[in-house]
């Protein structure tokens, strides 16, 4: 547990100090959300209708943008091979790193999403479901993203390839995320089936992605 905390804290400190972390992800999120109304025109009713979907897509892209930061720097400076020699299984290390990524990307983006939703004329009553669904769904995005990062360790500037690999896997999260944020806005219960499926997706990603990512990292060094 102490080891796990050591690595989470290190990644949080690095994300805070190095820049390119929280600020960049939120900035990118803001820019995408700002560009949408410019592209679609000032149709307030239309914007309001597509707001949850647009925010979710912006969230996916922001997470993808930052996910190659999780493993690539550690691979380049040799930290990752030291982590292979640690007493903690690599799978747990990957979980910790993914969790730190979620804390520095998923959580701040989820909390700011309703604020940026104002730009898209997001209905005020949709704010809470949006926060809830993005908070519950974004762990799946981080874990899947780290899996993509582990597969592209060797490729410098592999961000584009990660997107290509991982975006299809984001589809279920996107579908149920949007459904959870808009259906509950329409007066249904907050904890509807979509939200539960979203939670299931996150939990499944928590279990499966670190296994796959650790296997990919080991295979990479072999």
């Amino acid at each position, binding site marked *: 547990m*102490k*080891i796990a905390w*050591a*690595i989470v804290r*290190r990644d949080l*400190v*690095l994300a805070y*100090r*190095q820049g390119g972390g929280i600020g960049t992800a939120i900035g990118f999120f803001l820019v995408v959300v700002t560009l949408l109304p410019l592209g679609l025109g000032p149709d307030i009713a239309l914007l309001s209708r597509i707001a949850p979907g647009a925010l979710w897509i912006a969230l996916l892209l922001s997470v993808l943008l930052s996910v190659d930061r999780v493993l690539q720097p550690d691979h*380049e*400076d*040799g*930290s990752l*091979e*030291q*982590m*292979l*020699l*640690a*007493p*903690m299984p690599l799978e747990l290390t990957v979980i910790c790193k993914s969790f730190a990524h979620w804390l520095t990307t998923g959580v701040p983006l989820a909390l700011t999403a309703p604020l940026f939703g104002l730009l898209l004329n997001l209905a005020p009553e949709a704010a809470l479901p949006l926060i809830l669904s993005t908070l519950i769904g974004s762990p799946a995005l981080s874990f899947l993203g780290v899996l993509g990062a582990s597969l592209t360790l060797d490729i410098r500037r592999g961000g584009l390839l990660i997107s290509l690999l991982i975006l299809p896997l984001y589809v279920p999260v996107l579908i149920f995320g949007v459904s959870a944020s808009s259906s509950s806005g329409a007066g249904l219960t907050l904890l509807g089936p979509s939200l539960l499926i979203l939670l299931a997706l996150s939990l499944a990603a928590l279990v499966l992605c670190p296994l796959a990512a650790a296997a990919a990292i080991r295979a990479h*060094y*072999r």
Partner: protein
Amino acid sequence: MNGDGTMAQPLRLVAEGLVCERGGRRVFEGVDFAVASRESLLLTGPNGTGKTSLLRIVASLIAPAGGSLRLDGADDALTIGQRCHYVGHANAIKTALSVEENIAFWGAFMGAAPAGGALDAFGLAPHAGVPAGLLSAGQRRRLALSRLAAVARPLWLLDEPTVGLDTASQAALVDLMSAHVAVGGMIIATSHVDIGFSFNHSLKLGGERAP
């Protein structure tokens, strides 16, 4: 390993007929060696003969294409990789963290009690609060080597440990290595230069090629 830094169990690392293939090319084959506690092994040989690969095989970072590697005398479930320090070409230093934070992280991560004296081993204590990004190449090397002092592990794998080190740090490294062997540790190192440490064994790789 006991709390006082001595190794409880006498260990013996035995390699038999190791074969290494990298990218379809056979780098070496039929490599045998044995290193026991209180012993050290120097790997020599021209560039590209597999010295680093051999160290990485021992650290179980890469798999050998053949042969066997075993550690006799170990009575717990730790793997060889979890018992060794591998100091390779990459220093595993985060430039955004301070010197002290770097060593404290590896201490915590490798599962050791924080050792206050780790930075003293290579004279980095005065720079404890400095971001590692501001260190010179030699100082970064010293920081990487400080891991050896921060976490007690029986087997040290040192790949060209003296690159970039000044004479005082080289002497500090030799002192550290001597102390490690004296308490029952094992060292396998590669070096092209004489680092002033007397190794018990040496192994020449790529011997068939004329120097």
